[in-house]
Every structure is written in structure tokens, then in C-alpha cells.
């Protein structure tokens, strides 16, 4: 018995295991998929994420039922909060929904696979190196993929820039068009307050080879998080110039902006 299956047997309740088992995923005979996803690890991750989701951030997810139950889906959201907590919360919201749960895959920074332990653990929990080939292959496998088109620009932004959407890349739109994927815009409100940063020590980040080194409290604050899932959007695979693709991206961006505003209006307090 591996250490992982021991932990799983000890700490993962049967009900939760059944919930994960309900989700069909193409995996090999030993519980792995080509990207490193592991069926035992995801159960352990799921039980830990449940506490983070319910108790720490007290997440309220509206409209998660709008995510299609099958077929390729891109969950496109605003990125914030220095750490990829928003991806974790969106993933858990979709995996824990009562009707047709799905385990979405999050695209992570290229920096993570080089970090011992961290890269492997993230892979086992379903996170995948943010590479267009990976995204395309997963959409071809009918997976749901969480994408943050802002990338580092979004997660590394300072507290004074909170809820301002940075420039969106066009890559996700090309992939959605090529693979006939449904785009579900998601507005994340609350993650900006989890690790408010006042500055970025750029020379240190360069020296360490990491994307940014924020000046912030060395802890994650228990802000209340609201996830707003928008209506699914479809785009055909027409042969259009890049300018038109950017216009399509802007439509998704505007939708996310609307969802963020909605969340901010509905929010009663920060914590």
C-alpha cells in the first residue's frame, strides 16, 4: 500500500469518495492519466479543498449549473490573489455540484513543474502545464479546462489595481474555436483580498527566477469569495482575422467584467 492510498483510506469519507467516483474520467489501470492526474490524490485533495472552500473562504457559487455536463468546456475567469486559489475554488465548485459533477483541469504557470514536490502534487490534483498543446489535447478529450487569460499579469497585480482586468491573451479563443469548446465566463470576487500586495520586488523575482515576489502579509486572509458563473458562450470556427478574434475575446472579457461588478454589488462585507 502506498502512503497516498493509506492517507486516502484513513481520511477520505466514503460519501466523498463516491462523489468523486461518480465523475467519469479516462484514466489508466493504475489511476493515472497522461497529465499526471491521480484518482487517489484527487480524493485527498477534494477532502482538503472542501474545508478551504466551505469553512475558510465560505464560497458562494452562483450559476455553476450553467456549465455543460459534457463536451469540451473552457471556464474563463479573472485571475487574482498571488496564489492560484481562484482556480482551486472554481474547480471545487464544479466538482462538488450535485448534478453532473465534473473535475475541471487548471492550467498552471510554466514555473511550477520545476519546483520539487509542488509540480507533482499539482499534476496529481489535475493541474496541467499551461501549454496550448496540453489544452488542445484535453479539449479533444472532452475535458473542462480552467483558463486565466490574464496569466501572471492578473495574479500578480497589486491591491490598488484590484478587480481591474488586465490584457487577455487570444490563445483560449483560438482553442475554443478549433475544438468547438463552450466558453463559460466566471467572475471571481474575494480572492483579491486574500493576499493583498502593496508592491512587487522585481529584482528579487528575477534573481529567484519566479514570476513575482509580492510585499504582502505572509498569510492568506479568510476573505469571503463569490463565484459568478455566466451563461455559456459559443463561437464558430470561422476563418477570421486576428482582429476579429480579439473582438470575440473582448466580448468574453466584458462578460467577466459584468459578473465581477455583479459580485461586488452583492457583496455585503469583505470577510
Amino acid at each position: 500500500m502506498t502512503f497516498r492510498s493509506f492517507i486516502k483510506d484513513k481520511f477520505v469519507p466514503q460519501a466523498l469518495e463516491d462523489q468523486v467516483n461518480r465523475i467519469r474520467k479516462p484514466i489508466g489501470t493504475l489511476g493515472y492519466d497522461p497529465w499526471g492526474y491521480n484518482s487517489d490524490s484527487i480524493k485527498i485533495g477534494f477532502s482538503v479543498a472542501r474545508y478551504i472552500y466551505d469553512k475558510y473562504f465560505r464560497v458562494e457559487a452562483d450559476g455553476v449549473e450553467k456549465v455543460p455536463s459534457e463536451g469540451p468546456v473552457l471556464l474563463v475567469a479573472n485571475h487574482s490573489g498571488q496564489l492560484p486559489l481562484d482556480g482551486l475554488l472554481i474547480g471545487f465548485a464544479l466538482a462538488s455540484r450535485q448534478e453532473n459533477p465534473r473535475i475541471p483541469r487548471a492550467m498552471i504557470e510554466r514555473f511550477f513543474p520545476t519546483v520539487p514536490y509542488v509540480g507533482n502534487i499539482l499534476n496529481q490534483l489535475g493541474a496541467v502545464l499551461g501549454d496550448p498543446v496540453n489544452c488542445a489535447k484535453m479539449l479533444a478529450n472532452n475535458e473542462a479546462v480552467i483558463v486565466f487569460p490574464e496569466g501572471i499579469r492578473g495574479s500578480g497585480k497589486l491591491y490598488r489595481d484590484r478587480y481591474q482586468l488586465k490584457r487577455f491573451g487570444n490563445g483560449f479563443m483560438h482553442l475554443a474555436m478549433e475544438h468547438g469548446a463552450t466558453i463559460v465566463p466566471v467572475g471571481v470576487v474575494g480572492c483579491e483580498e486574500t493576499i493583498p500586495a502593496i508592491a512587487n520586488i522585481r529584482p528579487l523575482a528575477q534573481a529567484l527566477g519566479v514570476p513575482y515576489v509580492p510585499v504582502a502579509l505572509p498569510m492568506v486572509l479568510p476573505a469571503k469569495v463569490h463565484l459568478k458563473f455566466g451563461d455559456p458562450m459559443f463561437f464558430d470556427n470561422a476563418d477570421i482575422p486576428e482582429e476579429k478574434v480579439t473582438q470575440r475575446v473582448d466580448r468574453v472579457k466584458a462578460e467577466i467584467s459584468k459578473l465581477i461588478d455583479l459580485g461586488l454589488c452583492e457583496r455585503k462585507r469583505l470577510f
Partner: protein
Amino acid sequence: MSNERKPHILVTGAAGALAQQVINRLRDDYFLVAVDFREQVYLGDDIPSYCIDFNKRVFEDLFRRYDFDGVIHLGRIMSSQETRMRRYNANVLGTQKMLDLSHKYGIERVVILSTYHVYGANAYNPALIDEEAPLKGAGLSMDLIDSVELENLANIYLWRYPDLNITVLRPCNIVGPGVRNSISTLLASRRAPVLAGFSPIMQFIHIDDMADAIVLAYKNNQRGVFNVVPEDWVAYQHALLLCGCTRVPIPSIPPILPRTIARLLNLKSFPPYLMHFFKYPVVIDGRAFRDTFGFKPRRPLKEVFRYYRENKQPV
């Protein structure tokens, strides 16, 4: 019927376990000639066996004498054997000699065994790498150059001489009884080194399945380059556990540390130039081969690992 001429095939690397499996599958229907540069192996009275360097002139005599219809080229010196120069001479120049002779003597079918190492293990590798991906193996280490060069050479001949009908197979880790490569040695050992904090996803193919794939590739004449891999995956450290190995973690950062340790310990199965393959995954996509040739591997990973668990050699 008995006077009908059986097709003649030259099989290289005949001393290897894989070549012998291939020979056993083909010996009834084909007239085989076995060649190995290392030793002369006895494969029965019906199969002529030679120990010849491809770069020697006597190699051409075989083509003159036997009038081959096809070549199955499995004789590649692995990176853990011989010096770099000798490997280059045998793998690259020797293969070129063989392809030139194949063209000269009108051979119509060539199957070449390559390796997934040509893709190179890189932190930014996506999963399910397909045959169109660039071969980055040479960028990692000088020790993989001959593997990449052999592939490039095969590709040049594939397009320059379409009548040779070259099929290049890029298998994942070949394991099972008789296999003597690095990964097989690791799985068979009682204690196996691992890099602390890294357990890349790996793919393994049983030697019997690989022999089936080679025979299938030879018989179904489809030119091109194909990954050969079963649709199953496992993390390296998990594979070691299933093989009953005790894992010995080696510090993984900074990168010079594991390389130095491997060099000092002089572990044949854990050479410094393969260090990246124990750190980052190289997961290849075998769909093209499966769809083109109807390939279906029959030995599951659990069966492969059970063999290693039950056949431990003393360290």
C-alpha cells in the same frame, strides 16, 4: 508450394532480447538473417547469424548473397553502452551504410527502431507528444545526439527514397524479461535512486507487445514515423513501489547535485545524462500507430511490474 521462395529479411541487433522475440515471430514465414556487432548468436540451424560491424565491407556481402526483401533494424547501441564516438559510428554512420545498401540492392521494406528519448525530457513538455513534435533530445545532452541523428537520417532516407518504405518506431520504455536497458535495470533492482520531489509520469511497454508492434509494422506496409505506446501511465516512483523497490531519494536541486552524485556513484542505470528523464515527463501519443496498424497491447502494467517484483536480482 515448398519451392516458393520465402521473403528474406535482415534483422540487426540479433543478440538483444527484443530481436530474438521478433525473430521467433517471423521465422516460420520468412527466411531470416541475423546480424549483431557485439556477438554471434545461435538462433537455430535455419537462421544464418553473423557478427559484423555495419561499417565493414563484408556487410555488403550479406546483401549480395541473400537478396533481402526487407530490413528490421533493431541494432542500436544504447546510450549506457560504449563511448560516444563509437556509438555515433555504429548508430549513425552504420545505419547510413545500411540504408545506402538497402537502396542499392532494391530493398522494399525497412523498419527502424528508435526511442522516445529523442523528444528530450523538458520541464515545458506537454503531455501526449505526437510525431510532429521537434526532437529536443540533443539539446539536453551530447549523449543523446546519436539517437536524434539516427532519426534525422532515417527521416532523410524516408523522403528521399520512398521505395525503401521506411517505418520508424519510437517506443516508450521497453521492459520485461531479458531487457537490459537502464529503466529495466532500475525496476529489477532492490534499491532504486529517485530524485527527491520528482516523480514523472512514465509509459512502459512489455517486450512481447513491442515485438508484436515491430512485426505488425513490418507486415503492414505504411511509411512514416510512429510512437509506440500502450494507453496506460504511471508515475516513476509508483512504478518502483509496484516492482518492490526501495526508493533512495537523491537531492534534486540545484541540478548539478544529482548529476554529481550519479557521476560519483557511477550508476549504470541512473546515468547523469538521463537525469532529466527522471525529473520531467515525456508522455508520448501512440494514437497514430494504434489507428494505422490496429495495434492493441495485451500486457497490462500490473503484469509487467509483477514480473519485476518476483524477479529481483541481488544488488
